[in-house]
Structure formats: C-alpha cells, structure tokens
C-alpha cells in the first residue's frame, strides 16, 4: 500500500507562503522609458546591509544608503536613498581583435569595510575595477594666498598670516577607481568573488578562472583552465564561480552541464582537478534536446554558514550539502509549468536566461526570480514557498503583497494567471537579500524594488 499525496500543491505553493509578510517599500527608476542602458544587470548589498549597489547595461553604478532609523517613527526601517553614482565602465573597442567590449556591469562585489571608505569591485566582460567610495564633509578654509573661491590673492596684499582650519561642508561622496585589473580574460567574465582573506579575489570567464591580489594589477594567476586543445571538442563552459565564505583555500565553479566542482588551492597551483564534483545523476531515458540547456547552472552561492551551496538552473533551485556530492539535499521548483513551453522558450531565447539566487541572512529562506516580474521564496524549514510580484500597482508602503499563483493547466481560478498570459519580457534575474534583516532588493528590467517585512 502506498500513500500517494498530491504533489501539485507542494510544488506550486498552494499551501501559502512563509511566515514573513512582505510589504512594498520603495521603487526606483523610470516608469515608462525603455532605454537599453537602464537595464539593471547586478544588485548587491554590502556586508552591513547599509549600502545597496546596482550596476546597469550602460556601465553605471548607483549606490543607495539606508537612512538611519528614525527612533520615533519606527514603523518601518530606514529608506534607501541615492548615496553615490558613477560611470564604472565605458564601451571599448579592442583594435587588435576588432571587437567591441560592452560596458555592461556583470557583477559587483563589496569588500568588507576596513576604514572610513567603502570599496567595491565591479566588472564588465573584460576588466575588473576596484572603486573607492569616500565621504568628504569638511574642507579647509582660510588660506593665506587663495580666496575662498580659489582665485589667487596678490601676495603683496597679504599683511597677516593665519592657520587654515577645517570647517564642515555639505556631504560629498566621491568615487574613484583605485585599481584596474585588465587584460587577463580572453572570454567573457561571468563572476568575481572576494576571498575570505580579504586580500585576493577570483574572476571567472567561460573557460578560465584567475586569482588576483587586490593590490597587484599587472599579473594574476590562472587557477582553472578548461579550454580544450581543440576547440571543436568544447563541451562545457564555466558559468559561475565563488570562494567559500570561510575557507580561503576553497572555491567552487559551476558549468553549463549542470555540474559544480569544488577546488582546493592547496592541492596544486592549477586546480584543473577538482576535489569534489557535485552532480545529480540523470535518468538517461529522460533525456531530451533540452536537458543539457535547462541543466546549465546560471548561479552558485554558498550559504553564509559555508555548509551548503545553492545552484540555480533554468527550472529549479537546488541546495547541496558540501559533504554530499551525488545529489542535492533540497530541490525547489521555480516554475515547473514552463517545462511544457520549452519549444517556444528556445525559439525566443528565454531558455538561456540567467537567473540568480540568494540566501537570507540566516540561511533559512532562499529567493530567486521568474517571469512576469514574479519572484519566488522557499522556506527551507517549513517547506512553504511563495510567489510575489514586483509591480508598481502594489506601491502603497506597508501594504502586504498578495501571493500570486500561476495556473499550469485546466481551469484557471480567479486571481490566477495562466502560463500563456505570462510576460516573458518581464524577467527578474537579479535579487538580493539584506545580510541581517528582512529587506530585499528585486530588480525588474529597469526598475529596482525594495520590499521589507511588516514591522509593527
């Protein structure tokens, strides 16, 4: 006798969301404009969560800062306001190879704060830059030889001497490029990751991973090279890479074939031989033309604890225990209803969309995006999941977001959306979760939404 319970309700989240009630907080960006440069390409909180950085297709970085909580009106957490914005990368033309290099920011990663200034790494397809963001809130006044507006005084009119003093001024936030790490990647950089030693970082392209020292720009060490001697034999590419949050010698990289390799830099200088290979066995009779494409991992993220890692492939999110290589410990279906739409998703290239995923601060909930400006959260403890929408229609602050539901087939209930009505141009590829609080940043194509949990 076997108990067969309904699987659909578990996978499609009909059981209701997790215990957090998410409310709209802010939305940033133009309402109607459809400029390509505005497409948001990366979103990242810094280590304290006080700063939130975005990168876009136009090579610009915008940093938001959370305002200090107003102790009197503590019905919401501080809002995020613009702190700094700068042009990180510009379009370039490689004259030697006759090819154009896009300025789109692929990734931003923050360094932990060591002094008054903030540092982040931003990268496009070819060049990584270290940016210093510093505040200036005082300026020297009372020069002897200069007027306040900068004009030089006639020295013969100077009859007394005074000591210039620092006086307060309006806060100015300046961003300056401190290091430029260039010319180390033949292929397109997809990932950067800062080591827990806070001195080195890795950058990964389709075929190679390089290790850099933050102080040294004229050389980097190649630590992974999967380029075959004969390019005709190319069967897989590197899709993402990340350093372990605690072990400075360990990193992982994912591939287009759905595998993750964990490497130990102590084993050898060139980490072509993995220490661990994480792969879920596939039933060969289930294989189709699409199998490999949808198994391609678009993102890999370690849990904060370092014990688990999460991977995102086209249809699902998988949690792996680093101690178990042969299968993930948890699998969450993001939008399984798309499996019967793979043909058209291949034709419109959506099947190649690279969704990212993220953990909450306590590693108990994971989040990822989907289409129609929907995003999904999975609570690992309660096993409940929820689908929410990033839309300007819900933009009254402190209004709780209504869970959404997609009707896969058959009778569509009221308030459900049928698969065929989904807007595949509205994709949420990038999301980020505040490291300590229940505040999330969700990027639609060109808008940034900030949601918070309901604070009483």
């Amino acid at each position: 006798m076997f108990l067969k319970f309904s699987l659909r309700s578990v996978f499609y989240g009909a059981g209701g969301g997790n215990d957090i009630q998410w409310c709209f907080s802010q939305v940033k960006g133009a309402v109607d404009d459809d400029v390509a440069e505005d497409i948001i390409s990366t979103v990242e909180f810094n280590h304290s969560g006080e700063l939130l950085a975005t990168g876009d297709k136009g090579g610009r970085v915008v940093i938001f800062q959370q305002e200090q909580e107003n102790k009197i009106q503590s019905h919401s957490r501080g809002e995020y306001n613009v702190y700094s914005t700068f042009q990180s990368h510009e379009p370039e033309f490689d004259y030697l190879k006759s090819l154009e290099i896009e300025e789109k920011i692929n990734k931003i990663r923050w360094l932990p704060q060591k002094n008054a200034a903030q540092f982040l790494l931003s990268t496009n397809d070819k060049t990584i830059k270290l940016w210093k963001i510093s505040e200036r809130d005082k300026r020297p006044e009372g020069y002897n030889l200069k007027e306040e507006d900068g004009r030089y005084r006639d020295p013969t009119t100077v009859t007394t001497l005074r000591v210039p003093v620092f006086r307060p001024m309006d806060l100015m936030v300046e961003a300056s490029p401190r290091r430029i790490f260039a010319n180390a990647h033949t292929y397109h950089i997809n990932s950067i990751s800062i080591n827990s030693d806070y001195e080195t970082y890795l950058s990964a392209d389709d075929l190679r991973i390089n290790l850099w020292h933050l102080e040294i720009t004229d050389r980097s060490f190649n630590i992974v090279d999967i380029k075959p001697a004969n390019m005709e034999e190319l069967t897989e590419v590197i899709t993402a890479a990340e350093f372990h949050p605690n072990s400075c010698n360990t990193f992982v990289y994912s591939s287009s074939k759905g595998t993750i390799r964990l490497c130990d830099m102590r084993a050898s200088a060139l980490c072509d031989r993995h220490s661990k290979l994480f792969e879920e066995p596939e039933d060969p009779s289930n294989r189709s033309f699409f199998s490999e494409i949808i198994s391609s991992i678009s993102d890999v993220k370690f849990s904060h604890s370092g014990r688990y890692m999460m991977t995102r492939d086209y249809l699902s999110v998988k949690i792996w225990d680093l101690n178990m290589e042969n299968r993930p410990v948890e699998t969450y279906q993001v939008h399984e209803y798309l499996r019967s739409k793979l043909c058209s998703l291949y034709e419109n290239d959506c099947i190649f969309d690279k969704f990212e995923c993220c953990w909450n601060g306590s590693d108990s909930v994971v989040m990822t995006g989907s289409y129609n400006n929907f995003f999904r959260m999975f609570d690992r403890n309660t096993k409940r999941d929820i689908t929410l929408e990033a839309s300007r229609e819900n933009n009254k602050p402190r209004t709780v977001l209504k869970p959404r539901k997609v009707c896969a087939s058959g009778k569509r209930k009221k308030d459900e959306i049928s698969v065929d009505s989904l807007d595949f141009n509205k994709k949420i590829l990038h999301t980020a979760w505040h490291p300590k609080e229940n505040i999330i940043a969700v990027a639609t194509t060109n808008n940034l939404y900030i949601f918070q949990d309901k604070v009483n």
Partner: protein
Amino acid sequence: MSQKQEEENPAEETGEEKQDTQEKEGMLPERAEEAKLKAKYPSLGQKPGGSDFLMKRLQKGQKYFDSGDYNMAKAKMKNKQLPSAGPDKNLVTGDHIPTPQDLPQRKSSLVTSKLAGGQVE
C-alpha cells in the same frame, strides 16, 4: 497494478520519491516540446544542445570590423554599394563584411542613471 509497481521506488526519503514521480510526469511534456522543435527545425543537430550554441556563447556580442577587408571590398565593388546587413544586424554571414554602419553606435556622452534621478516613492 504494474503502473503502481513502476512508481514504487524504495526511496530512503519521500523527497526522492516525489522528485522521481515529478520527473516522470515532466518527461512527457519535455519530449513533446522536443518533437515540436524538431518539426519546425528539422536541420537541428542530433547532438542535444551541443557545442554549436556553446561556441555562439563564447562569441556573444562580438562584431569584427577589419578596415583592410572593408577597403579591399570597397575597391573591388568600385562604385557599387557594399551590401549592408539585413534586418538582423547581429548575424554576419557569408560574403558580408561588417561595415561601419553595421557596428552599433558608440554611445554618446554619459547620462546619469534613472535609478539615481527621479522620485523616491
């Protein structure tokens, strides 16, 4: 009876059984989709996903402009117009040589991101 036995997986945990049955249910739609695709594009290679699209991925966004080629072709054509790219400017195939018109416009001076301007709602 036999169908029940097929789905009886001696799994250590229910999670695996769920996944297995899910896969079986999901397999049919995927195969159906594959058949649809092959019907539309019969020339699609036998090799699923294959290195064709991997190579395309490695070359994503690249546009090659060789001034030597361009000038030689112009000289050959003499007064005739060089064929310019069709509607899909991303695909450069055959005899077509990328011309300066095909390359995307270099962006003009830099505008502040709309995330930084505009209202905070």
